[in-house]
């Protein structure tokens, strides 16, 4: 197996006014080609920051990040855009489909930004991609004519159309019901089995369970790096499958501000 992702001492500090927020304080890990990894952690843990770095949407304050043999850490912005286009397929919680375009056009969009492909070839590849996620029959539908699960499948087809090195899913089931979530995770598992490297960011243990390896982030540091099988076997008091406290649940849906002192005491 070769290395797909190599992160070394990644830190990310945000400057808000006079206050420095250390979202990541030095995280190192490797992800091999073909792995299925879940990144978990409570709100404010640095999990989203890490996802932004892995997704090349942001660059680390310090440390090095290598994706598929490319050193990303200090790339210029246009090159970062090109890396996102070629190496990464994004799946977002809110699907982010363009409402006025058909499923087919939505899926073909990343190929337009790659350049060099004529329009009919782009649509052909988009159609193949849609068939792969089981939506070959609904290519001409607009997003609002599709169910949530179908919309997320379109988003996955869009992520796959560039034949990326890495599929990066950010809470992909966050807007779906349980049954649809299971179907969608089944699809991601299938894709992983066929060789795709999948990184999943989630706070739901039921979703994380589909991955084979768990990276748990807390307070900007990598707390655990274990196979998911072990993570749930051990009766760790911090095990993510334990029901969250009401305060934690409220914070997940954004009703409470993140208070650092609370987290320290917890």
């Amino acid at each position, binding site marked *: 197996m070769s290395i797909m992702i190599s992160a070394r*001492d990644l830190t990310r500090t945000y400057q808000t006014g006079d206050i420095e927020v250390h979202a990541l304080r030095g995280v190192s890990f490797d992800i091999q080609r073909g792995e299925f990894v879940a990144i978990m952690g409570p709100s404010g843990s640095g999990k989203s920051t890490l996802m932004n770095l892995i997704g090349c949407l942001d660059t680390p304050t310090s*440390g090095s990040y290598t994706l598929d043999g490319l050193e990303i850490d200090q790339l210029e912005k246009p090159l970062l855009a090109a890396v996102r*286009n070629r190496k990464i397929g994004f799946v977002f919680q809110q699907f*982010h489909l363009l409402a006025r375009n058909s499923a087919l056009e939505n899926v073909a969009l990343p190929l*337009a930004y790659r350049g060099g492909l004529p329009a009919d070839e782009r649509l052909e590849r988009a159609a193949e991609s849609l068939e792969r996620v089981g939506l070959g029959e609904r290519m001409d539908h607009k997003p609002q004519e599709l169910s949530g699960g179908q919309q997320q499948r379109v988003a996955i087809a869009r992520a796959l159309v560039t034949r990326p090195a890495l599929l990066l899913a950010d809470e992909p089931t966050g807007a779906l019901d349980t049954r649809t979530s299971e179907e969608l995770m089944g699809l991601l598992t299938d894709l992983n089995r066929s060789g795709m490297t999948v990184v999943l960011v989630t706070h739901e243990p039921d979703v994380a369970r589909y991955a084979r390896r768990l990276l748990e982030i807390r307070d900007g540091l990598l707390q655990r790096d274990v196979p998911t099988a072990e993570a749930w076997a051990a009766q760790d008091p911090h095990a993510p499958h334990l029901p969250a406290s009401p305060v934690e649940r409220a914070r997940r849906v954004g009703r409470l501000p993140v208070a650092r002192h609370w987290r320290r005491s917890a």
Partner: protein
Amino acid sequence: MSTHEQPLRRAEVAPATEAPAAPDIAAEEEEDLWEGGIGWPETLGMSLSSLRANPLRTVLTALGVLIGVASVVALLAIGRGSQASITASITANGANLLTVRPGAPSSGGVRGAVGESSSLTLADAEALANPQSVPDAAFVSPEYSGNAQLVAGSLNLNARVTGATAVYPSLHNNTLAEGVFFSDEDNRASANVVVLGANVATNLFPAGDSLGQQVRMNGQSFRVVGVLASSGGGGFGSIDDGVIVPLNTALRKLFGARAAVGNSFSVSTIVIQAASSDQIDAALSEVEIALRNQKDLPLDGSGDTFSVINQASILATVTQTTQMLTLFLAAIAAISLLVGGIGIMNIMLVSVRERTREIGLRKALGAREGDIMLQFLFESLALSGVGGLLGLALGSAIALAVGASGVMQVQLSLDAALLALGFALAVGLFFGIAPARSAARLDPITALRYE
């Protein structure tokens, strides 16, 4: 804790522990990342598709530019048309003309009113007609004008009567609709013949049979030998509303215009035609010198009892005035175009805000800042371009309608059209840059999370 050293060392070590060929491949791939990217036709397609998604907004925004361009085009056409018609009516009186009038020139302080003393005489005209004193003149034509009651049968009217020589039609660009102009022989003989202006002919002889008929003026009978073709131009005492008789007939028989001093006759004006437009200035100074000599006036012009009016300078003044007026109107219209541009900017800013998540998504999918910038610039350019083209059509239609109504003369011109269209596009570009830049600079992470 040497937290600063650690990441550096590891970053160097990490690729080395991997396959040795990896750095080369990576470098090659990094080169390759600069290649490709979306082309402008695709970006233009995206811009047009977002404009189509919001048709009402697109139309209303383009309307601002449309109205601006339409008013610029219409006002320029009307302004240029008026200028052309004024120029035409001035040059209709004849080209390269100098007109000598009695009375001091008005420039350089307060002088007596023009025409205060009837100081031009037939002798002055004869002096000017001498080719040695005014070599740059082609024709010299003394003219006398007065008013008289014209009677033909039961019809009568009061008209301006001009006494002139046989060169009058060639000097003033008049052609005859019927008959002939009187001859030098008629002038020498003080013959009772008259040439009618077009309007006078139709008023006195509604049947159109004026030729050969008799017209009575001041108790004398005149035979109609010719009728002038209408000269069209309305202003500046058009000859359409007057009649012309031989100069000697007017001076001796009709008005008895004997000069107050000397044994000569008064004339109202002396019209001189320069041999060519290049010789007008030379002819003007020759005329002034010749007249000062003839009338024993100071040669420095301080005691002039006459003034010489240069038609070309009147034309230049009038042209300049109408041009200023046209530019002024166009500038006001251009302000409305500017307001249209601000409308575009407003809508583009709203659009960038509304589509924040779309912009974030596009960036996540690999759109570079330049791609987003271009997409939004194309949108504002398309808005102003479409508004400009439709405005061009509307403005031309308005101008043509005004022209067809006969109220004003209009003149559409390609350069005015291109100017208005170019200005519209420049406005779209200028007011599109700020929204496009704010779109391009959005951080993809915050843009994707924007609610």
